[in-house]
């Protein structure tokens, strides 16, 4: 009997049709709706904790409260004081960890791959701001939270990392939470977006992360 490769599953049930790509069971659904929600859990998620003013902080070049895509297509998110979340394409985990280890020198640093321990959802569309205003107390206007903003707050009463990561000029947000709350967050956002015509879009590596500019 031939040996089969293990298949990773997101905590969020994929909408049919279902396929397997990048070693993950994902939805293959496509939509042309203006407001879309995508389960981006297959993206690599690396959690880095280090000194606020140390070598790793200088190398990552992203302060607390901001997010930026580096030249290799890794989205570096300043998710907390002395805390960064690195989002990379599927399969890039080892390389991403190695790059942080190279710059850490003698500094005490925690580098943890939380890819399978967290859930990640992307909401895209101009009405995403109205959707999020229903479930989160933060001001999502351009003046307060422009593109590249990152913060942690309560979303649908769930502690969530929120990153504004516009794509091709279209407003887009990444929402990151503990794995066990993934389905709840996804359903809450889907329900909140119902009045705006939100539709589910299956995971696509090319759409999940912004391309390096």
């Amino acid at each position, binding site marked *: 009997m031939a040996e089969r490769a293990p298949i990773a599953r997101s905590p969020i049930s994929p909408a049919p049709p279902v396929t397997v790509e990048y070693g993950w069971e994902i939805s293959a659904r496509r939509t042309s709706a203006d407001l879309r929600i995508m389960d981006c859990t297959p993206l690599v998620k690396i959690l880095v904790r280090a000194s606020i003013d140390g070598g790793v902080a200088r190398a990552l070049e992203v302060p607390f409260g901001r997010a930026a895509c580096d030249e290799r297509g890794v989205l570096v998110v300043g998710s907390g004081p002395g805390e960064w979340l690195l989002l990379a394409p599927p399969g890039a985990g080892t390389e991403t960890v190695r790059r942080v280890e190279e710059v850490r020198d003698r500094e005490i640093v925690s580098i943890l791959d939380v890819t399978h321990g967290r859930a990640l959802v992307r909401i895209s569309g101009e009405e995403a701001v109205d959707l999020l205003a229903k479930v989160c107390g933060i001001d999502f206007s351009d003046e307060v939270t422009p593109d590249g903003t990152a913060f942690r707050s*309560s979303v649908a009463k769930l502690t969530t990392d929120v990153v504004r990561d516009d794509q091709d000029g279209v407003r887009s947000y990444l929402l990151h939470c503990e794995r066990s709350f993934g389905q709840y967050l996804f359903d809450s956002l889907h329900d909140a977006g119902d009045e705006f015509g939100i539709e589910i879009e299956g995971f696509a590596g090319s759409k999940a992360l912004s391309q390096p500019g």
Partner: protein
Amino acid sequence: MILIPCPWCGPRNVSEFRYADEAKVRPDPNATTPERWRTYLYMRDNPAGWTTEKWFHRAGCRRYFTLERDTVSNAVRAAEASREV
């Protein structure tokens, strides 16, 4: 609604925070007396008016900080980052 001015995240709803006791100096356990240690552990001033407190931003930066709060009106002021846990 009470807005708590987190020194890292800015003003946020109080529901994102956890109250973490009155701010007071922890005595050295090797040098203090049992009476002072007991007072530190169990006794609270609980004033009607301005008091200094520790708060924990559990749904945000996950940092402790000190805050002055009027326990009568719930007015708050002068938040500052605190290294003490």
